[in-house]
């Protein structure tokens, strides 16, 4: 970075990543077909700076748990803690990236990245722009800051969404199948980017996916969920050096192992999960 002010420097300095803990969390929804237990007494511990992946078929509660951690929803019972404190609502320390980019079409790229920054106290407008530029640069979109959202490709939109989520410098990044709607080539690029950014910005990342290989590529740990009721069934530690290549043979070994376990839990429902 060239010339920066003091507060800008502190803004771009790494915040310490956060520890997340869910204890005996249950959550049910009422649908047309009756009550669904999306999460049944689920407990998770996420370490500081850990990259954790939630994997499972649809309806297994992985996104529900993410929303609870985000503070968008409240659990029926049990508690969720961020650094030992109860999560009562959304917070700037926990930013979310959605499957649909959720960018605001009435703002341009810069405006979208500034949206969260404007809500963060302590920065003047020049500093906010500097911060936004830094993150647009980090995701490789510094040249598109004036572009309208509809002019971007799907991959670029998710990059902007990533920059927008990173800009307020959250300690936790919550990603809800962010690459599911993208083509394979674009996805592979983003796997590299997200690993690079994770290491550069030291975040705790929780990444929800139904793609086992994606989870093995990104996660330090992979948690396997199964539906009806939503539970965590198994845990895998991925002991591979980074950056990881999604096409590597070692990675395939892990994803086969996870897929086999998954098929055991969800016989008949395993089709929804891609290897």
């Amino acid at each position, binding site marked *: 970075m060239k010339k920066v002010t003091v507060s800008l420097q502190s803004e771009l300095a790494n915040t310490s990543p956060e520890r997340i803990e869910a204890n005996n969390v249950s959550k049910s929804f009422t649908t047309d077909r009756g009550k669904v237990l999306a999460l049944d007494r689920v407990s998770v511990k996420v370490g500081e700076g850990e990259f954790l992946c939630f994997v499972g078929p649809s309806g297994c509660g992985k996104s529900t748990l993410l929303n609870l951690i*985000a*503070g*968008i929803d409240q659990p029926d019972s049990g508690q969720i803690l961020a650094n030992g404190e109860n999560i009562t609502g*959304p*917070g*700037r320390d*926990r*930013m*979310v990236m*959605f499957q*649909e980019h*959720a960018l*605001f*079409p*009435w*703002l*341009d790229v810069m405006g979208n990245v500034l*949206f*969260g920054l404007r*809500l*963060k106290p302590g920065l003047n407008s020049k500093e906010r722009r500097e911060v936004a530029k830094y993150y647009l640069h980090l995701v490789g979109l510094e040249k598109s800051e004036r572009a*309208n*959202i*509809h*002019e971007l490709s799907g991959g670029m939109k998710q990059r902007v969404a990533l920059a*927008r989520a990173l800009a*307020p410098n959250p300690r936790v990044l919550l990603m809800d199948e962010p690459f599911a709607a993208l083509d394979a080539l674009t996805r592979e690029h983003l796997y590299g980017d997200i690993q690079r950014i994770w290491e550069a910005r030291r975040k705790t990342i929780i990444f929800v996916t139904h793609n086992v290989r994606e989870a093995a590529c990104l996660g330090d740990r992979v948690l396997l969920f199964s539906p009806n009721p939503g539970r965590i069934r198994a845990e895998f530690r991925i002991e591979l050096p980074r950056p990881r290549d999604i096409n590597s043979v070692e990675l395939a070994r892990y994803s086969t192992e996870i897929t086999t376990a998954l098929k055991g839990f969800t016989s008949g429902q395993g089709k929804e999960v891609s290897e």
Partner: protein
Amino acid sequence: MIHRIFTVAFFLVLLVSWEVASRSGLWSPVLLPSPLNVLEYMWQATMDGTLVTSTMVTMKRLLLGYGIGLLFGVPLGLLTSRFRILQDTLGLLALGIQTLPSVCWVPLALLWFGQTEAAMLFVVVMGTLWSVLIATSDGVRSMPPIYLRAARTMGSKGLHTWVNVILPASLPYLIGGMKQGWAFAWRSLMAAEIFVTILSGFGLGQLLQYGRELLAMDQVVAVMVIIVAIGLLADRILFSPWERFFHKRWGTGSTN
């Protein structure tokens, strides 16, 4: 460029056929004035001030009534969209009243307010308010809920969400509603002016009605042309720039 030529040619042909038809003597000139007669009346009425005064009187009523309609219609529409109880009550009422042609308000307005400016205004407001309310409410409700969730996670709430998310997200619909409201206001005012004579000002509608009473067909047609011209101009000045901006930003429709 080629589009312009077609446009100009079309209207030229229309005008020439009109002139030819009126000169053919098949119809009485009282019933079918030539375009030149109409133009002559416009010139004359502009010079003696009749046309200018009437237009001003009408525009004042229109803008005032339209403004009041927006002032209440937009906020009520926003509230209706967010609260189920208002949707089931006010929203339903608006939907019902909107189907009532605004000229139907004229008898009631006359009985309530007499032959006054207030009666005119009342009719215009009734013509505007409900359609704007419904368009606004529909617009907000068609907003993808993901915007609200995304905004919440970034710390937006309350008034900030209204101003920075809900309002801009529904702006394209709002402009659509305002445009429709404008058309309704214009229609209801003309109906009111034709039906009601009031001494505080003679608007375009009244000028049109006098034209009929005096059998001055050139006046009738001239006023009609002016009414159309004002409608078109308003669309170009008030709404088109916005619509073009939204098309560009949102990437909806073509920009040319």
